[in-house]
C-alpha cells in the first residue's frame, strides 16, 4: 500500500497543464463527489430501487483518465461506475432516473446503478460481473484497428478483476495485436472485504504488464494530475498504434463495498486506515493546490459547488417526476425473430 501521507502536486506539472484542463479535472471530481454524497443523503429514504457501489475517494481516476478521451472513444466500466460515467459525459438526470427505477433512466429503469450506459458518449454499458467488461474493450479496440477509426477504448476495473482469468486472456490478446486499449486498474486494495494481499501472490499489478510486452504504470490514484499524465501517455500510445497500456492507480473507497455506509464498524477494515485515506482526499487536496498555487481564483472555485447543487436538484426532480416502467417492459429487447 502507498506510504505517501500527502497528495503532492508537482508545481512543474501544474504549470505545464492548461488552466482550463486543471479546472475541468477539479470540477469533474467535485461533480462525482457531490453526486455520490447526494446518494448517501437520500438512500435511507429507500426510494432508490437498487444497490449502489459508491466511489467516494476514488474520483481522481475517472476524472484524470476521461479528460484524455474524445466523445466517440469507447469506455467500459464496472459495478462501481458512477464516476466513470459522469467523467465520460453521461448526464446526472438519466443516472438518478435509473437509480429510482424510472423509464427515463439510462437503462430504462430496469438496470439500476450497475447498468450505466450512454451510447452517445461512447459508454458501452456495464454489469455486475467483476472483469466481465474487459474483453468487450478488446473487441471494440480490435474493431477500431480493423476500421482504422483512431478511436481508443478504455476499460476500468478494480484489483478484484485482476484476480479473474479474463483479465489475462484479454490483456494478452490486446498486446499481441497491439490494440488501442487502455486498461485502468483502480486498486483500492479490497475486493468486497478481502484485502489484496490475501488474494494476490504479488501485489504489483502494473508490473505484470511487462510479462505481456506492454507498458505498465503505477500511479497515485488520489492525485488527479498523476492519473491525467499517465492516461495522456497511454491514450496517445494507443491512438498512434503503439498498443495497450496497463495503468494501476492506487486509491481507497471510503464507503463499504455496497451501500452508503462506512464499513469499519463491521470490522471489515480499520478506522485508522479510512482516516489515513480521507486525509489523502483527491478532491480537497487538489482544490488546495489550485487555490494556494494561485492557479484558479478563489472566486471561481467558490462558485463551482453551487452550480453542481443546481445540477443535482434538477436531475433529482427530473428522476422523481418520471414514470415507472409498465409490465410490458419486462419483455422488451430480448431478441428479434
Amino acid at each position, binding site marked *: 500500500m502507498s506510504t505517501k501521507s500527502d497528495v503532492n502536486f508537482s508545481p512543474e506539472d501544474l504549470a505545464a497543464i492548461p488552466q482550463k484542463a486543471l479546472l475541468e479535472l477539479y470540477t469533474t471530481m467535485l461533480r462525482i463527489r457531490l453526486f455520490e454524497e447526494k446518494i448517501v443523503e437520500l438512500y435511507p429514504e429507500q426510494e432508490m430501487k437498487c444497490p449502489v457501489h459508491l466511489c467516494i475517494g476514488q474520483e481522481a481516476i475517472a476524472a484524470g483518465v476521461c479528460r484524455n478521451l474524445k466523445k466517440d472513444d469507447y469506455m467500459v466500466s464496472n459495478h462501481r461506475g458512477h464516476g466513470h460515467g459522469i467523467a465520460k459525459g453521461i448526464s446526472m438526470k438519466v443516472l438518478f432516473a435509473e437509480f429510482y427505477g424510472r423509464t427515463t433512466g439510462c437503462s430504462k429503469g430496469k438496470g439500476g446503478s450497475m447498468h450505466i450506459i450512454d*451510447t452517445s458518449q461512447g459508454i458501452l454499458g456495464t*454489469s455486475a460481473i467483476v472483469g466481465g467488461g474487459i474483453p468487450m474493450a478488446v473487441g471494440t*479496440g480490435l474493431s477500431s484497428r480493423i476500421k482504422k477509426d483512431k478511436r481508443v477504448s478504455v476499460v476500468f476495473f478494480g484489483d478484484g478483476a485482476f484476480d479473474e482469468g479474463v483479465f489475462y486472456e484479454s490483456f494478452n490478446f490486446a498486446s499481441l495485436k497491439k490494440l488501442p486499449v487502455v486498461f485502468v486498474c483502480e486498486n483500492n486494495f479490497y475486493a468486497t472485504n478481502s484485502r489484496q494481499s490475501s488474494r494476490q501472490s504479488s501485489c504489483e499489478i502494473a508490473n505484470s504488464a511487462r510479462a505481456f510486452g506492454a507498458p505498465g504504470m503505477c500511479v497515485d490514484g488520489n492525485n488527479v494530475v498523476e492519473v491525467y499524465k499517465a492516461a495522456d501517455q497511454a491514450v496517445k500510445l494507443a491512438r498512434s498504434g503503439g498498443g495497450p497500456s496497463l495503468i494501476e492507480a492506487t486509491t481507497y473507497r471510503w464507503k463499504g463495498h455496497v451501500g452508503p455506509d462506512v464499513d469499519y464498524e463491521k470490522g471489515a477494515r480499520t478506522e485508522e486506515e479510512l482516516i489515513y485515506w480521507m486525509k489523502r482526499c483527491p478532491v480537497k487536496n487538489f482544490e488546495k493546490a489550485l487555490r494556494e498555487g494561485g492557479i484558479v481564483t478563489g472566486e471561481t472555485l467558490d462558485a463551482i459547488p453551487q452550480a453542481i447543487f443546481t445540477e443535482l436538484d434538477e436531475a433529482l426532480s427530473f428522476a422523481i417526476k418520471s414514470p415507472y416502467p409498465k409490465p410490458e417492459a419486462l419483455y422488451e429487447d*430480448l431478441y428479434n*425473430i
Partner: protein
Amino acid sequence: MGKITIVKAINQALAEEMARDEDVVLLGEDIGQDGGVFRVTDGLLEKFGPQRVMDTPLAELAIAGTAIGMAVYGLRPVAEIQFMGFTYGALEQVFSHASRIRSRSRGRFTCPMVIRTPYGIGIKAPELHSESAESLYCHMPGIKVVAPSTPYNAKGLLISAIRDDDMVLFMEPASIYRAIKAEVPTENYAIPLGKAAIMQEGDEITLVSWGAMLHKAMEASEGFDCEIIDLMTLKPFDEEAILESVRKTGRLVIVHEATKNCGLGAEIAALVAEEALFYLKAPVLRVAGPEAVTPMASLEDEYVPKVARIREALKDVMKY
C-alpha cells in the same frame, strides 16, 4: 450445383458472407493458418487476409468477449470454438454478456455474433470433444441456437445466423461433417431461423429430431408412417410445426443425442402437454443420451441413440 459436404457448405457460407459484407470477421484458435481443427475455414485466410480471418490465443473467454465488443461496435464476428465442450470456458461471456447486450443496452445495441462449434459424439474423441450441450444455451434468454443436419441447410442457416442481429450458437454436427454429400446451390441463399423443415410427411407418428440424429431417426422410420420434423433452429424452435403435426398424428417421438434429463426433448414434450394434450393417443417418448459423461471409442455406440432404440420407441407408441 455440385455435391459437397457439410464442412464445404459451411466454408462456402462463410466465404460468401465475407465477400458480401466486409463487416463479417472470423476469429478463433487455429482458424487462419491451419484452416481450423476440422478445416472448416480452410482457404479463407488466403482469400480475405489476417485482419478478417484471425488466429487467436487459446483463450475462449477472450474470444467470446472480444467478439461481443466487435458486435457492439457494429461488426459481425463469427467465432469458432474448437469443440462444444470447450465453449464451457466461454460461458461466462456468453451467458452474462452476449445474451444480454440487447437487453442491457435497452435495444441500443444488438449482438450480431455467431459462435460456431462442432458438437456431438462419433468422432472417436473423449468427453468435451463430443458434447451436445444445446439445452444449456436454449435455457438462457437472449441466445438463439441452430443445429443443421445437411450440407444444404448448413449453408442456408449459417448465412441467416451471420445476418441475424442477435447472438447465435451454431452447432455443427461433427460426426457427419464429411459423411454426407449433397447438392448445394452455388448461389447465396438464406434459410430463415425459427422455422423447422418437414422432411417427410406422415399420418401416424410425429418424429422430431435435429443435427446428426435426424439421419438416424429417418433411417429408423422405415416401415412406419412418420411425419419427420427437422427442428434446425433449437431456440426459439418452431412450436407451430410440432403442434400442427401432433394434432394430426396424435403420437410424438423425440430423438436427441444430449442427455435425456432436462434435454430439449423435455421442453418439446411439455409444449405438447400444454397445447395439444387431448390430441395425443400415446405417451410422448424421448430417445436420448443417458445421464453419463460422453465416452470414447466403443462406448460411443452405447451412449448415442441407435436406430434400433428409435425403432423400439416407434413400435411402443404404435401400441396405442
